[in-house]
């Protein structure tokens, strides 16, 4: 294992592939954390998993049909996200059951189509586990541009998103169009999931969405501060993870997620009790006063 030195960092940064990976990876990590905050607050943490597996079905369909898999993945993810929201809001199926159904459907379609088009190639593995170091110029530019647009949209909607996450009925009474806000958010979150496939792969996306926010919720006071902490942690984990994986010759996706986890556990050790409370979160209940009435 080569020693980690300042000069070695400079060397890594001098490579074009590393620069592209770091910039596009950081952008994607940041917007994942931002979208993830609202998903976690709404107890919809597994949304990313559901959508990424549907996106995998889309990737496989693209490879099967011989069209650019990213576009078919995007179409599948957005359709899947809207379908999930529809299932969640207008049927008696609970959010987690709907997500599980969506996840299984996406993966089953994906596996079947992949086998029909010649088995698991390098391309397919790249989508499953990420391939950030292989990102080309246009891909990197597209990832940064889409991340920036999604972040701008989320920031523009932040007030409404916070209101809806806090309490849908009160939001509706304050004149918020709750259904429209939900559908718009689901579309943005689905786009974010597809954009992040290159960084950590389909199988680890929900880590990128959930872990920095769980950590930030142990630390942050107020929504703005929690979002800032979460985004900073995500970017730090992505950048450090990519550099570390380069030196140690490890998979970047796993390294990023493990670093993110390490930060979470470190904060949990500093703030005893907080993590347990967060992970135990039962269904929302009234305040103690009202519950006692």
């Amino acid at each position: 294992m080569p020693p980690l030195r300042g000069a070695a960092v400079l060397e890594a940064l001098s490579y074009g592939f590393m620069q592209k990976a770091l910039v596009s990876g950081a952008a994607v990590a940041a917007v994942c954390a931002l979208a993830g905050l609202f998903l976690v607050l709404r107890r919809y943490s597994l949304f990313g998993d559901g959508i990424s597996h549907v996106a995998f079905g889309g990737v496989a369909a693209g490879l099967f049909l011989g069209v650019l898999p990213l576009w078919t993945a995007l179409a599948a993810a957005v359709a899947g996200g809207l379908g999930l929201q529809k299932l969640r809001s207008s049927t008696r199926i609970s959010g987690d059951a709907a997500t599980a159904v969506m996840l299984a459907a996406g993966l089953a379609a994906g596996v079947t189509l992949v086998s029909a088009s010649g088995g698991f190639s390098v391309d397919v593995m790249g989508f499953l586990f990420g391939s950030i170091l292989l990102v080309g110029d246009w891909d990197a530019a597209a990832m940064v541009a889409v991340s920036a647009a999604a972040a701008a949209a989320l920031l523009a909607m932040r007030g409404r998103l916070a209101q809806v996450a806090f309490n849908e009925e009160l939001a509706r009474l304050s004149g918020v169009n709750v259904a429209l806000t939900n559908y718009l958010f689901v579309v943005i979150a689905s786009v974010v999931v597809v954009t992040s496939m290159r960084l950590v792969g389909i199988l680890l996306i929900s880590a990128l969405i959930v872990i920095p926010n769980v950590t930030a919720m142990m630390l942050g006071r107020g929504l703005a501060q929690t979002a800032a902490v979460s985004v900073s942690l995500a970017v730090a984990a992505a950048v450090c993870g990519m550099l570390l994986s380069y030196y140690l010759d490890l998979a970047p996706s796993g390294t990023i997620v493990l670093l993110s986890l390490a930060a979470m556990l470190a904060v949990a050790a500093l703030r005893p009790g907080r993590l347990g409370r967060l992970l135990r979160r039962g269904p929302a209940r009234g305040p103690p006063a009202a519950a006692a009435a």
Partner: protein
Amino acid sequence: MPVAAPALEVRGLTVERGGRTVLDDVSLAVPEGDLLGVLGSNGSGKTTLFRAILGMQACWKGQVLLFGRGPGEFGPIVPLIGYVPQSVPLDPNFPASVRDVVAMGAIPKRLARAGEALVGGGDARRRARGPGEAADAALGAAGLSHLAERRIGELSGGEQRRVFIARALVKDPPLIILDEPVAGVDAESQEQFYDVMGGINDERGITVLWSSHDMEAMEGRAKSVACLDRKLLFHGPCGKFFADGRAVGAYAESAAHAAECHR
């Protein structure tokens, strides 16, 4: 000069749910500036009345007018109204600060103007103030300035109730509706809550509808009383209610009956 329409007018309101009559032919008018105590035991229809007023109750017969306007125009009016529901499901880990929750009560200027065009009046102060300033003012009015940066989940039940009143106040509502606001809150917090409630009615002239099953709490605090047991048993000045042995007796009887059913 034309006489201003009452803040709220309900005519012959009847709500049936699951084959049961929840509200039976309730009619009342609440003038602007009133502090109306809606007195009723559990299951007397208080929450249903409020939900019908806010357009949240699906099936009902009769007529509800807010500032002289019918349900067709409730879209822009309802967001102006401050509403504190009986219980707000709250995740103790939700990372919002007290200030965040209060600021969430603000409504967009476009919506506020559309509502005020129908309701009339409007508050010049609101337009002059930014959302941050409005939140600070509402926190001050609810006696919560010292808790502004705390997480909402860390507060006691009584403090949380005041946060929701501040959240309702942030938009300078012409009417505020409090559904059993002090249920389950300790006596000292109840006093603090009533002080805040009296202040917003007295000093700011906001019409207040406040429901409770606590008859003693209403005496001396409400300006008028509407006593409800699916039907309206009494509606008039507070003093008149407490001087009227028959009205008080009727409530005591309905409360005893409700307690019997609940056991």
